[in-house]
């Protein structure tokens, strides 16, 4: 119990804290369509406090298309709106628009039956007040019609047209001097206003409830009556305007027979509406329009002889004859013949024009045919041509008397004959084309585009073929290009070059001016491709050979004359002439020469030298000699390569350029007795920078034990020379003997160098071996020795 009391207290508390206070009318709101009803709180007005917020729940209407009307003299003290969903001001609120237009004392909210409730929210109260409020549920059509009925009646009355003039036409009124413009404009303005009125009425009608039709509802009856009046008045406006416009047309075409001719259909159409217009008006029209017909024949009699072309005669003679009939006027003599001629002439001119158009379309279709035609293409075109041929008009106007002599008649005949000839010629050409196409298609299938082009060119008079087959130029070029590329890619250099040459001299093209520049470019490009191909394959072949023989140490000299170092194909053609051919041949040969004289020796020397230095005992002499042989073919200027060659060449001088640095060199046999004694040699070029005018050095040579071990019992060297001058112990030089005690180091001292020039120290020795010896050499300034 206590818990329930507590819940009640809490609920009341929260209710007391709501932002909007609901006003609950007593009696409850009724939704029936009635007059205004006062909104009361048990007989009293609701009291509103300033700055408080309120809301009142209104039920939905019984049907759609209703308005909720709220009427109060104090609306100006309130800020309000209507919404169809409300939760104490939380969430999104969609305000329903007030359609009152003038929010003074009335608010008009459109409502329907789709929601549970509508909520009128009093968002703001400017002052404490009593809410004096009337409400009303009302159908929209009724609210609108009732509100505007008076206005609708006024509009109708203001825009009625006086029918007296209409009725007096042909009776007491003719249109001579009549201001058509003014009258027509006035009627049109009124018609527009009545049409707008009618539109509004129709809008109201569109929201009629289904059950309103044929009822005695006063508003409904008022609506029906007004609507009928408006419709009748608008129909009169229309008839009157039609009459005025026909007579205005006649009036405007005076002195202009062409204009009169163009107006003939309107005149005939007008005269044909016998039920629509009163007789007086029809009679007046027959009189006025029929009165114009006598102008026709004199006009043509005068103008036709002057006509100097085969164009259509711009006059509707058929309708002119009909107007004679419609107005009951009698045709003058000769008019029938004239009308016959004009009609025949125009029929033929029209047929000619049509045939021309069709022929043009046919030719354009052939010309613009987007693909090469199928075998039966021209057969179809011949059929189309035949159809055109059958539509061609006859020639000759002999049955039209004098008119046959008229120039326009002759010109028309001529044009007809021309087109006939054209059709016949085209027929013949299409027949030939019909025979050629299968052959061309066969060539095409076989990709013999050049033969296609030859055939087309042989039939050059079939000019329509050129645009159809304009793409063959490109195909031919592409196909030849493809074949050349295929030959290049498969290494068929001679074939490729022959095809390239053939392409260069190929002038079998339909549009040379277009394709030739491309062809020249293609030939040039293919030449480059061929050259590049020959160059690359030649180089690849040479490189493969190089790769395979990089470490070959046998018959190295012969390797350099291997055909692998020749181009795979000797170029014999370029489109740019003999000098370019020579230039390319030279470039190609230069590339091969580069491979032969630089890359091969460079690679081989690097590889062999690495192998050589890894283990000089492993076939070192042969490797060194191979390196030297490679070196003899090397024409580059890479100092490292040259140095490596020099290191392996016993006759090449090894540079000593720094003092006090031991430099390792190789002593190699200069003879080739693999099983016996060989003579070894090594050369040093001592070029150590020195400020001295007469640089002098000690040369220290660390020898391998195998070379020097017998030095104490026999002279280890055969000969030592300095700049070819023999150095001997017995002279002023000191040559120390290599011994085990001094780690087999020999010193030659003092050796004077020629400043900034080559100083070649050459050492020869013999040894019972055939191998590579490593020797270390060091030079430094000497000490002064006693001995």
């Amino acid at each position, binding site marked *: 119990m206590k818990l329930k009391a507590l819940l009640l207290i809490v609920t009341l508390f929260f209710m007391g804290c709501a932002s909007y206070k609901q006003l609950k009318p007593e009696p409850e709101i009724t939704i029936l369509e009635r007059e205004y009803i006062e909104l009361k709180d048990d007989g009293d007005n609701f009291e509103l406090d300033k700055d408080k917020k309120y809301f009142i729940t209104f039920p939905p209407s019984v049907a759609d298309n209703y308005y909720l009307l709220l009427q109060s003299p104090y609306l100006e003290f309130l800020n309000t709106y209507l919404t169809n969903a409300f939760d104490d001001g939380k969430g999104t609120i969609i305000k329903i628009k007030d359609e009152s237009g003038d929010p003074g004392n009335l608010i008009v909210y459109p409502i329907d039956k789709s929601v549970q409730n509508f909520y009128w929210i009093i968002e703001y109260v400017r002052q404490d007040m009593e809410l004096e409020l009337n409400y009303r549920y009302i159908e929209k059509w009724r609210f609108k019609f009732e509100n505007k009925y008076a206005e609708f009646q006024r509009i109708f009355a203001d825009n009625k047209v006086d029918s007296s003039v209409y009725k007096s036409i042909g009776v007491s009124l003719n249109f001579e001097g009549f201001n058509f413009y003014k009258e027509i404009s006035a009627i049109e303005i009124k018609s527009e206003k009545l049409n707008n009125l009618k539109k509004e009425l129709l809008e109201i009608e569109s929201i009629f409830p289904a059950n309103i039709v044929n009822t005695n509802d006063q508003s409904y009856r008022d609506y029906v009556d007004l609507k009928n009046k408006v419709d009748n008045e608008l129909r009169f406006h229309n008839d009157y305007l039609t009459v005025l416009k026909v007579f205005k047309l006649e009036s405007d075409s005076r002195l202009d027979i062409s204009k009169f001719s163009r107006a003939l259909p309107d005149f005939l159409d007008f005269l044909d509406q016998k039920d629509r217009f009163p007789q007086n008006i029809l009679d007046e029209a027959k009189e006025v329009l029929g009165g114009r017909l006598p102008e026709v024949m004199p006009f043509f009699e005068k103008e036709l002889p002057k006509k100097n072309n085969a164009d259509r005669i711009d006059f509707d003679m058929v309708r002119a004859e009909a107007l004679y009939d419609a107005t009951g006027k009698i045709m003058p003599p000769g008019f029938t013949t004239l009308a016959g001629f004009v009609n025949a002439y125009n029929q033929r001119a029209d047929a000619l024009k049509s045939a021309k158009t069709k022929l043009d379309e046919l030719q354009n279709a052939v010309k613009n045919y987007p693909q090469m035609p199928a075998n039966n293409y021209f057969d179809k075109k011949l059929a189309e041509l035949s159809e055109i041929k059958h539509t061609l008009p006859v020639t000759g106007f002999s049955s039209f008397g004098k008119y046959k002599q008229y120039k326009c008649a002759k010109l028309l005949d001529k044009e007809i004959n021309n087109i006939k000839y054209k059709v016949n010629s085209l027929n013949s050409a299409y027949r030939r084309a019909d025979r050629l196409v299968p052959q061309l298609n066969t060539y095409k299938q076989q990709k013999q585009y050049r033969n296609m082009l030859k055939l087309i060119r042989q039939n050059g008079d079939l000019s329509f073929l050129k645009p159809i087959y304009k793409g063959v130029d490109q195909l031919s070029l592409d196909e030849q290009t493809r074949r050349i590329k295929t030959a290049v890619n498969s290494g068929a250099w001679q074939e490729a070059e022959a095809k390239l040459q053939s392409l260069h001299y190929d002038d079998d093209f339909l549009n040379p001016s277009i394709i030739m520049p491309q062809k020249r470019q293609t030939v040039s490009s293919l030449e480059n491709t061929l050259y590049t191909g020959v160059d690359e394959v030649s180089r690849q072949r040479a490189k493969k050979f190089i790769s395979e023989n990089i470490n070959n140490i046998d018959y190295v000299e012969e390797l350099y004359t291997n055909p692998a170092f020749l181009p795979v194909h000797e170029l014999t053609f370029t489109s740019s002439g003999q000098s370019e051919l020579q230039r390319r041949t030279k470039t190609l040969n230069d590339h091969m020469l580069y491979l032969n004289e630089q890359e091969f020796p460079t690679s081989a020397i690097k590889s062999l030298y690495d192998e050589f230095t890894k283990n000089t005992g492993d076939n070192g002499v042969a490797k060194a000699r191979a390196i030297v042989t490679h070196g003899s073919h090397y024409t580059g200027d890479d100092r490292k390569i040259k140095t490596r060659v020099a290191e392996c060449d016993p006759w090449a001088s090894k540079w000593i350029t720094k003092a006090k640095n031991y430099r390792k060199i190789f002593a190699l046999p200069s003879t080739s007795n693999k099983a016996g004694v060989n003579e070894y040699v090594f050369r040093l070029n001592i070029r150590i920078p020195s400020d001295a005018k*007469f640089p002098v050095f000690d040369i220290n040579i660390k020898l391998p034990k195998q070379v020097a071990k017998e030095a104490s019992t026999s002279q280890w060297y055969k000969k030592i020379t300095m700049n070819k001058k023999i150095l001997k*112990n017995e002279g002023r030089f000191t040559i120390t*003997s290599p011994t085990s005690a001094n*780690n087999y180091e020999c010193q030659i001292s*003092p050796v004077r160098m020629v400043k900034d020039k080559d100083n070649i120290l050459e050492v020869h020795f013999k040894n019972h071996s055939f191998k590579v010896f490593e020797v270390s050499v060091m030079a430094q300034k000497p000490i002064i020795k006693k001995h």
Partner: protein
Amino acid sequence: MKKRIIIGAVSVLVLAAAAYFLFFRKDLSDKIIIPFIAHQKPRVDPHIPSSIPIADKLDEVLFDGLFNISANPSGITYEDGLGEFIEIDHNNVVTVRLKPKKKWHDCYNVKTEDEEISISEVKENYFTAKDLNFTLRRIQRLGSLSPDYILVSQAIEHFDFSGPDANNEIRFKFSDDRIWTEADIKEVLSFKMLPYNSELNAPNYYIGTGPYLAVTPQAEVTNYYKNPAGNANLNNVILQPYIDNSTYTTEIKNNNINTLLSTPFGSVSTILSDNEDFFYKSNISTTFFAVVFNVQRLSLEQRLDLRKLIDNKKIMDRFYKIGTEQQRHIADYKGNKDNYSDYLNYSIFPSSSYYVDEKIVMPLTDLGHPSFSSLPDTVKIQTCLNYGFREELSELVEIMNDPSLFHGKIKVAAVKNNEIKKGNYDALLIAVSGYKSNFLFNLYDIFLREPDFAQYKIHLITDSDGKGNRMVNNSSFQSDKNFFRLDLGSPSPEQENNIKLLEYIYGFMATREVGDRQAYAQFIDELDQEMALGGWLFSLPSTAYFRTQFDSSSIDLYGVASQLSTIEKWRERKED
């Protein structure tokens, strides 16, 4: 009957010859017998060059260095002497172990009875670091007079060492300006060792540790016997005195000597051409002849003309009788024959020397024609025949006195040694022997040798500059102290050049820089061309003969190395 008589007579003769061969032939086995001029006693000083060729060569016989220069067929070698090379570290500190058991020669007593020599050890006197220290101090004191000074100073600035340590190892700090190879180190340390108790300036040094010891150490000249602690193959080295060198070839021919280190005229001897009995070895020249001018008596102009007058080629052609049946043939170590022109000199520096051979010095070879008007009526040239090269000098005197050669302008007279000192000559014909063709060419020997052939004395006076450096004193040039009579003690129109000359000579000799030597050599040569101090005639080929008693392969005579540097290796030829 006659036939029997003939056979009998022949048999008697054969027997007589056999008896002679068996009982009277001279037995030179186990001996190396070398001739010398009796009155030119070799003064042995291992640190100072001598004018007597044999004297320097005996250094190798008597003394050891820490390392000894030797040779083999491949060239110079260095062998352990008193030291053993241990190492050189990265700071160029050289470690040498001193050999502890190397005895000085005075440990032994040598007795000679009936030409039999017996040796007994009388005391123990071992080589120690003290001896090394003494030797280094002596070399340092000798300065530029000693080639060893140059040798050592370029490596060891202060001539000192540390040690020895317990392992008897000493350490030298070598200079840091080069990579010291073992050969270089041993060369630097090859100076000959003297015992610490030696006199600093003795006339002779006979106590060494070398392969041979002096038989009579107190004598002016001594023979040598194998050091018992050494490893010489032959026991005796005997110096055989002769009056002059004229009979040397005959003496070796007659088996009185077996080693002739230089032949008269340096030529190949025809009487020694039998390969069965003799072999010869050539090496680079060590002697040249020159006519040095007396600047006191000849003006500059006269000296210039006299130099032009003395045509060395004409003299040489006569000297070797070129183109005659008596031509003296020569052969050099390179294998060249009769290449006389290679020996012609045009500078103080001989053509064989480094300085000319390498064109450091490029003397004029075409001097032009002399003007006789400037010359005295007779140019008086003196020479002394009694102190070596008698044969050669006599021949030169005869040649130069030939009126057809120099238009009678020159009169050469052989005079006694005392006369030379007086300076009564316009020029002096001299032989300069023992010169080295390497950097150590000795200019003191030419310019500062006192004019006394009986002794070898270099008149060099130096002063200290107060900074520890020595500089030459002008009084080194005194007219009576050199052959040229150069004198800076009294005013002279050529005083400036004379001062320059002295400075250049000292600079050349005292520097240890090769570049400086080259520069000084150029200066001196240019100055000589200006001052015309002499006519530099020609060098004498160096040809040594040996009897085939020796195994030729055991004798290696290399370059400027002493000819006797390998003497302990000489051995007698084994009969096949």
